[in-house]
């Protein structure tokens, strides 16, 4: 069942068309990656999904109902972080959550607020003013705010922006817990493609305000050519072997004696055998079929 259905979404700011034609759907239980380069229209689309921005055209349905006609009901079942969570800095973490709890459309007991602060690892800091929080702590408080009313859908727009590596790992683990423990449907927009690759099961890529591709992450990656990163000891010998046996493959020197090979068909075993036999001193072979390559290919078109 589709929990979110976006069809031919458009948004104009005066003469500028920020979103031209974006369509995708998010199924129940999906961790859905929402990708696109800067200026592709991701944030505008997400803001339309959360009724922060009024769309110029298209339809937005949640749980099979129009967002426009059922705004309050829909938003009571959605939790979100848009870019960075902003709070009332002069209030404590607990006070901030109490404020948002009062208007989330459900009755939230004080015990639930404490449980949520525990869940995101902010127990002991609940009485501290948010002005003293680090960016990572604010992000965790943002996730607590998002989950406070036990929403069916969680929308996270660039939740790791500005975080240090430790913070990124913390947020990633929190999202994994949402997926595995709480069985939430998550729409995740991120520039961390490796993260999307690990976490998401479905994704859409948009560019210049239009949907480029949508589908299962592994299926989309399967379709693209397999790349290898090969490091050898004897570079001239390696180049000679490649020229002799695989002249049709695109081989690029990355650095020193490490090469990037774009393969049109999976001939890995045969190629490794030839290299070993040729005596080029094979040191490592790393398969590179990454979302990053796929993303760049899709958005370069």
């Amino acid at each position, binding site marked *: 069942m589709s929990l979110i259905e976006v069809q031919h979404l458009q948004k104009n700011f005066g003469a500028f068309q920020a979103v031209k034609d974006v369509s995708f759907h998010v199924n129940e239980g999906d961790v859905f990656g929402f990708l696109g380069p800067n200026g592709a229209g991701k944030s505008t689309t997400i803001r339309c999904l959360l009724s922060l921005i009024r769309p110029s055209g298209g339809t937005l349905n949640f749980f099979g109902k129009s967002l426009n006609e059922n705004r309050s009901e829909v938003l009571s079942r959605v939790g979100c972080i848009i870019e960075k969570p902003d709070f009332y800095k002069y209030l404590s973490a607990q006070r901030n959550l109490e404020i948002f709890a009062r*208007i989330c459309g459900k009755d939230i007991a004080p015990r639930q607020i404490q449980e949520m602060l525990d869940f995101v690892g902010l127990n002991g800091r609940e009485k501290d003013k948010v002005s003293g929080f680090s960016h990572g702590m604010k992000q965790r408080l943002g996730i607590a705010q998002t989950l406070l009313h036990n929403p069916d859908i969680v929308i996270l727009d660039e939740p790791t922006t500005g975080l240090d590596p430790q913070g990124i790992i913390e947020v990633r683990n929190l999202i994994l817990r949402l997926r595995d423990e709480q069985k939430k449907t998550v729409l995740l927009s991120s520039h961390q493609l490796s993260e999307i690759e690990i976490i998401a099961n479905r994704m859409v890529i948009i560019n210049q305000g239009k949907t480029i591709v949508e589908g299962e992450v592994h299926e989309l990656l399967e379709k693209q050519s397999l790349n290898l990163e090969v490091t050898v000891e004897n570079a001239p010998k390696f180049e000679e072997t490649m020229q002799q046996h695989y002249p049709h493959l695109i081989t690029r020197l990355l650095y020193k004696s490490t090469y990037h090979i774009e393969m049109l068909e999976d001939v890995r075993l045969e190629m490794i055998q030839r290299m070993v036999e040729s005596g080029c001193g094979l040191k490592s072979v790393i398969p590179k079929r990454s979302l990053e390559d796929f993303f760049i290919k899709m958005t370069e078109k």
Partner: protein
Amino acid sequence: MLLKNTYNELLKIATKIRSYIGIGALTLLIFIVLFAMKADGKSYVGFVTASFEQTLSFNGKILNGNLIAFIIMQMLIVHVPLLIALVTGDLLSGEEASGTIRMLATKPISRTGIVLSKWIAATIYTFIMTLWLGFLSLFVAKWMFGTGDLIVLNSNGLLILPEADLAWRFGASLLVAFLALWTVATLAMAFSAFAKNSVGPIVSTMSVIILFTIIGTLDVSVFDSIKPFMFTTHMAAWRSLFDDPFPTGEIIESVVILTAHIAGLLLITLVRFNKKDITS
């Protein structure tokens, strides 16, 4: 949801330092006036009554709490709007500047609900400021200077209002003054719906008050047709409560004009905020 968010808004106002700047400044100003009157009030009153002393003889305590309260109200009603705008001009734009508007507008409460709850909170804040002004000017002044009849100098001459006739006049004048301040609060909030920081709405509100006040005092016929409809013309309507005979028609007209301004400005705020794309 509206009541719950109104509680939220009151909580935000109560926990912000800027909310107490107005109350603190008002308290300080009133105590400065009280101190000045205690130190040199007789010569101040003497200056006012000097021109009448050849034809009238004044008996009793002219410099009393009622006169001081009247003087304080006259001096401060002009300045209190700035203190009110300091808080209400920040209500929507402050959320925009801090980014919390995104968090607020993605909750199930409607945009109309957000505006109305902020407006109700602004109304309560304005009412508290008016009450505080009344309490300090009336009760503290009476405690310091005692009571007595009130001498009012107006365009028709000198009017002496008996003490027994003053309680309701002060009460009603505070209500009319509240209506004027409420208009300013709503104006600042309307500007706040158009801005992304709180400086703009506060400056704009004060600019409008200054501009309209100047237009109101200009003796040029071209402005005569608009003067009765400008809210600043009616900001001093509270003073009419101390006239005799009591100008009922004028007071009703002021109440109607100020109420119409409040309704109109609230409507503008609602339309603007409902149509606004939140891109911050």
